[in-house]
């Protein structure tokens, strides 16, 4: 078993997004260790939210934590952080110092742009907008209309941030979103 407590944290990658979008699953897809989850039973309102897997009965109340080992000395700490505003203190702790952020958004919801914008405002406020990729879930790769509408919105906050379709269950897909977040250029003043 790998020792978690006491190890130097060199890089942090944060997965953020609304309840049920797949943050915990995305952490699990990349993590080399068993993911430490802080989940509680979701209330009825959350369970009935649109687009949520009816089998999903829990929600993250602290954060999910996993680790991806790059070599013998270096690793990425993976965080899936909760979507509810009442956990803003968790955002404050993790977002400002992270190496990259993947924002997961339900692409199949009619209000997905509003949902996305809510998160973009949070990321901008928390000074975590620079290394960003926006991953739309549950839509087809060729849904250009949804992708372009989202790109237009995201460009208002970050001119170069990529918007892509992704599946949190698919390691390649999560890895692709991660690499894109980490390598996104940001215009310096």
């Amino acid at each position, binding site marked *: 078993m790998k020792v978690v407590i006491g190890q130097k944290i060199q890089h942090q990658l944060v997965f953020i997004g609304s309840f049920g979008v797949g943050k915990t699953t995305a952490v699990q897809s990349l993590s080399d260790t068993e993911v430490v989850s802080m989940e509680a039973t979701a209330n009825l309102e959350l369970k009935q939210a649109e687009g949520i897997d009816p089998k999903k009965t829990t929600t993250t109340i602290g954060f999910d934590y996993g680790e991806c080992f790059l070599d013998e000395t270096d690793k990425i700490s993976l965080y899936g952080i909760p979507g509810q505003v009442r956990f803003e203190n968790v955002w404050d702790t993790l977002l400002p110092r992270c190496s990259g952020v993947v924002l997961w958004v339900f692409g199949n919801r009619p209000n997905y742009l509003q949902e996305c914008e809510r998160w973009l405002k949070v990321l901008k406020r928390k000074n975590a907008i620079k290394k960003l990729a926006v991953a739309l879930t549950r839509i087809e790769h060729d849904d250009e209309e949804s992708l372009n509408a989202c790109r237009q919105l995201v*460009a208002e906050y970050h001119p170069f941030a990529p918007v892509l379709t992704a*599946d949190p269950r698919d390691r390649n897909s999560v890895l692709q979103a991660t690499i894109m977040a980490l390598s996104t250029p940001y215009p310096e003043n």
Partner: protein
Amino acid sequence: MNTIYSIWTNKYDSSRVKAFKSALTFRTNEVWQWTDEPDGCDLWVVDATQTLSPEIERLYQEMSHKPNVAVIGLRSKTANIPSKWQLFATPVSVPVIFRWLDSNFYQSTRRLKSKNIRPSDIEPWKQHEFKLISWPNISRYGSKVSIAVTCSNLLNAYHDFETALKWGVSAEILNEILKDAYQTSLLKIRSNDDSKHDQIDHSHNNKSDKNVSLIQKLMSRFR
């Protein structure tokens, strides 16, 4: 050689339309000209801040070659516009316009104009080093990690075609990515002479991007 594009609008005296047109003057290598004729035009700029006349949509439906349509207005008043029209909520910002042009407009327009492309303009990335200015729409090419890796490398520095092929993407997909990027003005190409003297881009990027080594390790880890 500048590319000429034509614009038609339903309100030539609208300050919002004029502002939109003014933004286009910042596009280098492009000339945007007003036209009175909506048919055969590259771009319609429709001011819908007050009302959107159904006549506009009717006119659009009659067009044999559908133009790109940019609608300036409020989301609340333009909920029923055709799905292919692009809404620009007021106030419209220049980066938003540019983003739309780069991601959407040129692909459809240049396809129509492709007959006018000279042979020497085709695939210049095969002869010169190139670099991506921004992320292309990589969802179009599938969720292969090698695509993200290739684009990531090309965002960080100039490379040639042969080098880019070593990152695992097939020549066919790489060519497609570069072609799309070139047509949407996302590809920066420099001559071989420039590459000998121009070190500015490399030094700037090495300094500004602290994640480069992390990405390289991540790539190695999942190779």
